[in-house]
C-alpha cells in the first residue's frame, strides 16, 4: 500500500512544468543533475520539500505536452510514490507505467484533497483514500498487463524477471 503526504496541483500540469525542456541536453548522462529543477516553477524548492512516499494529486490532463520520459522518472527519483489525477495525457500515462510509477485516475479525491493531507493508494483493492479528510474513492482496476508491470516496478524490471514483456505471454 502507498501512503504519503499530498502535493495538490491543478489542471493541465505539463511535462514542461515537471522538467523544462532546456535541461534535457545538459543532463543526458545523469537525471540527478535535473533534480533541482523538478516542478521548480510550480512549487519552488519542490525537490527539497518532497519526502519519499509523497503523492501528487492533480486535476485534468496531467503530464500533457512533450513526450519526455524524464518527467515521470524524475518524479519517482525525488520520492513521489504515485500520481492521482482526474485524467492523464496518454504518453505520460504510458511512460509512468513503464517506469513503475503508479498513475491513478480518480474524480473526487482531487476535489477534496489539499497539500499536506495524508493520501493512501491501495492498488490491490482498488481504493484511494484521503485519510485526513476521511474520504475514499473506488478506482477501476488496471488491465492485467499494466497491473503486472506496476507490481514488478516497471517494464524493464518485468522483462528482467520474466524474460519478455507481459503481453508476449498470451494477450493479443
Amino acid at each position, binding site marked *: 500500500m502507498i501512503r504519503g503526504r499530498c502535493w495538490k496541483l491543478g489542471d493541465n500540469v505539463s511535462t514542461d512544468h515537471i522538467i523544462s525542456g532546456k535541461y534535457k541536453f*545538459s543532463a543526458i548522462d545523469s537525471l540527478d543533475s535535473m533534480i533541482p529543477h523538478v516542478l521548480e*516553477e510550480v512549487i519552488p524548492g519542490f525537490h527539497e520539500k518532497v519526502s519519499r512516499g509523497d503523492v501528487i494529486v492533480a486535476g485534468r490532463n496531467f503530464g500533457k505536452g512533450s*513526450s519526455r520520459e524524464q518527467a515521470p522518472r524524475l518524479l519517482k527519483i525525488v520520492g513521489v510514490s504515485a500520481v492521482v489525477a482526474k485524467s492523464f495525457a496518454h504518453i505520460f500515462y504510458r511512460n509512468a507505467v*513503464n517506469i513503475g510509477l503508479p498513475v491513478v485516475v480518480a474524480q473526487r479525491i482531487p476535489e477534496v484533497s489539499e497539500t499536506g493531507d495524508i493520501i493512501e493508494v491501495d492498488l490491490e483493492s482498488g481504493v484511494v483514500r484521503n485519510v485526513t479528510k476521511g474520504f475514499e474513492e473506488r478506482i477501476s482496476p488496471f488491465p492485467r498487463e499494466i497491473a503486472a508491470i506496476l507490481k514488478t516496478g516497471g*517494464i524493464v524490471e518485468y522483462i528482467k524477471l520474466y524474460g519478455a514483456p507481459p*503481453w508476449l505471454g498470451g494477450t*493479443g
Partner: protein
Amino acid sequence: MGFIDRLVSRVVGRDVSPGDIVVVDIDAVYAQDGTAPLVIEVIEKELGAGELLAASRTYFFIDHSAPAPHVAAATVHREMRRFCRKWGVHLYDVGSGICHQVVVDEGIARPGMVVMGADSHTPTIGALGLYALGVGSTDAAIAIAYGRQWVRVPPTVKVVLTGRPPAGVMSKDIALSLVGELKTDGMVGRAVEFHGEALKCISMDSRFTLTNMCTEMGAESAVIPVDEVARQWLESSGLTPFRRVDYNPSETQFADELTFEVGRVEPAVAAPPDVDNVLAVGEVEGTEVDQVFIGSCTNGRLEDIEVAARILRGRRVHESVRCIVAPASKKVYLEALRRGYLQALSEAGCVVAPPTCGPCVGAHMGLLAEGEVALATTNRNFPGRMGHKDSKLYLASPATAAATAVEGKIADPRKYLQG
C-alpha cells in the same frame, strides 16, 4: 468505432472495440535527438538487449538540436550515430529535417500502417490514413527490441469540417480555432478523425497541420482516412498504401461527433500562456514583436514557405524584427530553393535556417531573451518554450507570421493576399 479500430482489427485479425488493450506489430518506430538518448540507454544498459527485432524498421532523427549547438548535444548525436551503425538502425542526420516531415517525404509512413514515434507530435502523420501513436523512450525501446507493443484502442471523435476556408485563412487558423473551442484537454483519451466537404479543398500540406495540432487538444491520435486528395498526392509521390483497410465511415458509430464550419474561421492567434488562449487576429493586431519564426512540424512545409514568400517578396522584414525561416525538411528546402521562395525570403531580410526544429523547442537558432515577444508558426506557447521563462510567444499561421514580419507587430495577413 472509427478508422483506427478498423485498422487495428485488420492488424490483429479480429474485431476490436475502443478501450480494448491489444498487442500489435509496429510497422515503423522512430525517435529524435531529444528522446533517442534514453531509448539507447534502455536498450543497451537497462534491457541489455542481444538483438533488436525491429531494427530494420527503426529510424532515428537528429532534428531537435541540429547542427549541434553545444557539446552536450554533439555527444548525444555521436551516441546516436554509433548506435545506428552498431544495430543497423536508419539514421537521418543533421540537415535531413524534422522527423514527422521526413517520414512522410521518404515514404517511411504509408497508409494503413501502425507507427510509434517517440515524440508527442507523431499524430501529424495520421493525415496519411494510418494509426500514429506518440510514446516515450521506454515504449519506443520495447517496440524496437520486440517489434510489438500494446496499444489501448482509443475511442474516436468524428470532426466534420464543413464549408470552405475563406481567402487568407490557412489550416493553422482552423486548427487553432478548434483548440480554442475544445481546449487543451478537450480530446484527452480520444482520437480525432476528420471528415467533411471542406477536406476537398484542404491540401495534404495543410492536413498535416490539422493532425499535428490535435496533440494540443490532448488527442491520443489523429487520422484522415485516404480520400481523393490523398490518393492523388500518393500517386504523385510514387507511394502505395502499406495495408488496405475496408472502412465505411457512414456505417460507423463514433464516441462523439462535432461539426465545425470553416467558412467562418478568421486568421487566429494563440496568445500566451497556452495554446487554447485563441483570439481573432484583430484582437491582438498591433502587438509589437521582436522575432518571427516560420517553420516546425506544424508549418514548415512547402505551402507554408510559399505563402510567406508571396507576402514577403518585394517587401522588407521590419527593422525591429528578426524573421527566421526553417523549412521542415531537406526535400522542402530544396524545392523552396528551386522555386525561388528562399531567395525571395532572404532578399526580404529573413534568416533562412537549415531544416531543424530549432527555435520551436528553444533548442537553438533564435531563443528569446527576458521580456521579448515572438510570433511563431509552431504548436506550443507554454512559458519559456522558446527561451527565457518571461518571454512571450504567440502562435499563428505562416501568412499571419509573414505579415507580422513586415509590420513589426501582429498583423492581419488578408490585406497582403487579395487579388
